[in-house]
C-alpha cells in the first residue's frame, strides 16, 4: 500500500511538473512533435536541426516557474547545473546560449515571427494565436 502511494505521488508530481510549461514554435514551423532527447540537445546547443527543421532555443528567465520546471523535468538538470553549463559554453564560444526573452508575451511574439526558434512558456489550455504547442514525446 505504501509503495502504491509513493508511486502515485511520484506519478502525479511528474504530471504536475510536465503540465507547467509548454514548448512552442511558430505556427508556420514544419514540426509538430519533438522527442525529449532532441529537445534537450537543442537547449544544450548540441543540435540545431530536428527532422530537417532548423531550431534555435529561446528561454524565459529562470525566475519563471515554467523555466524552472522545464530545466528540471525537460532537461533533467538543476538550475545551477544548467547555468554553469551555459556559462562554460558562452565563455569558450563553443555555442550560443538560448536567446533570452523577458516575459511570456515577448516570447510568444518573438516565436510567432521567427519560425526557426523554439520557446518555453507557462502552460495554458491551448497554444496562443500564431504559435503551436509541440508534443514532447
Amino acid at each position: 500500500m505504501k509503495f502504491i502511494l509513493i508511486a502515485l505521488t511520484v506519478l502525479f508530481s511528474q504530471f504536475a511538473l510536465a503540465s507547467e510549461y509548454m514548448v512552442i514554435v511558430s505556427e508556420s514551423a514544419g514540426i509538430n512533435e519533438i522527442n525529449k532527447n532532441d529537445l534537450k540537445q537543442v537547449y544544450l546547443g548540441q543540435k540545431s536541426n530536428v527532422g530537417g527543421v532548423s531550431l534555435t532555443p529561446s528561454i524565459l528567465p529562470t525566475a519563471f516557474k515554467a523555466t524552472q520546471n522545464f530545466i528540471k523535468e525537460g532537461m533533467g538538470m538543476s538550475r545551477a547545473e544548467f547555468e554553469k553549463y551555459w556559462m562554460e559554453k558562452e565563455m569558450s564560444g563553443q555555442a550560443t546560449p538560448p536567446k533570452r526573452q523577458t516575459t511570456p508575451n515577448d516570447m510568444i511574439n518573438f516565436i510567432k515571427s521567427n519560425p526557426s526558434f523554439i520557446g518555453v512558456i507557462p502552460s495554458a489550455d491551448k497554444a496562443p494565436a500564431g504559435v503551436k504547442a509541440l508534443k514532447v514525446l
Partner: protein
Amino acid sequence: MVRNLLGAAAVVFGFSSLHAQNMDTRFYGYLDGYFESVEDQTSANGAVDENSSEFNVPNLSLVINSNINNDYRAYMNLTGQGAGNISVRNAWVEKSLAGDYLKFRIGKLYRPFGIYNEILDAVPTYIGIEAPELFDTDHLMLTRTTNLMLWGQKNLGVWSLRYVLKTGNDERESSQVPYGIDLQYNIGSNWKFGFSYYDTNGKAKPINDKADSPSEGGVHAWMSEDEYNVMGPYFQYKGSKWTVQAATYQADHNATRDDSGNVGESKADLICQSTTSANQRIKDRFGCVGNDAQNTNADYKIDTYYLRVGYNFDLESGGQITPYAQYDYYKNPEMVYDKSLGGDKEAGVSDDGDFVKWTVGTVYRPNYTVTFKLDYSQHMQDVVNESKDYGEIRFSYSYFWKF
C-alpha cells in the same frame, strides 16, 4: 567561397540587413584576478631560490558572440590582461556547410584539445585555479590557438560525437601544414570520452626565439628546429554533484638545439653557462664542455597526466561550495630551470625533469556570477639526489557579467 566570406564578414560587422531579424548578438564577459604565494624552493644547483608573493591584477574580458540563424557565427574575446593593453584572445567566424554535421571556422581560435584548452578563460566554471600541466604557460606542450577548423557533430539518441580537424600557422618553420584532431564522444550532458592528436607535420621553430621567456608552444626557446606530435585520451563526468576529470598526454620530439654563432653565445651554450639551469641532467644531455654545448641532438618525450575530482554542496542561499582535489604529474627531461632562458622552475629543477603536484581547494559560488577559489598545492621532486617539497597557496576571484 566568396559568398561565404561575404556572409561571414557581414556577421562580424553587423551589416547584414537580409538576415537582420534572426541576428542574435550577445555581449558579456568577466573580471578576474588572483593572488599566489610560493614557498622558497631549491634551485637546480641545490641553492635556495626565494619566491615572492604575487598579485595578478584583474583581467577584464569582453566577449561578443553573434549568430545568424545557426548558419553563421562570429566570436570575439578581447582581454585587458593585467588591466593593461587589450589583446585579442579569440576572433573567428564560422559558417555551417552541412547543418550540424560540418562547420568551417577561421580566425584566431582556441584549439579543441582535451577538456581544458577551450574553457580556460571560463574561470568561474571549472574546479581548480591553475591549468593542467599540458597548458601551463611555463611549459606548454603545444600552442593554445590555431587558425582554421573543420568540425561537426553527429547526434543519435542520447549520445553525440564531435569531430574536429584543425590547422594554422602554429609553430611551423615555413610552409608546413601542422594539423590537429580531436574526437569527443558525449553521453547526455554528463559523460565525455575523447582523444586528441597534434602533429607539426614537418619542421617547427619556437614562436618566441628571443629565449627570454617560456615558449608559446611546444618548441623550446633553445631549439633551432623541432618535429613533434602530442596525443592522449581524456575523460570527464560532470553531474549535479560530482565532477571527475582525467587525461594523459605524451609528446614525442625530434629536435635540434640551437648552437649557432661563436662558442658561448648560442642559446644552448647560454644554458650550459647558467649556474641554476645546468644541473647534471642538462650537462649530460647538452654535452656541456665548459660553456660549450656540444650535443645538438634532442630527441625526447614529455609525459603528463592529471586527475581532478570535485563535489558540489548546494547551499540554502542558492550558492554552492565545491571542495576539490587534484593530482598532476609532468615529466620533461629537456626542461631547464632558468625562466630567463625559456625554462620552467617546476620540471627544470628536478634531477629527472619530473615532478608531482597535489592540490586541495574549494570553490565558493555565492551565486552563479561570482566565484571565489582558494587552494593549496604541494610540489614534490628530486633535486641533487634529495626529495624536495615546496608549497604554494592561491586565491582567485571572478565575476561574470552580461548585458
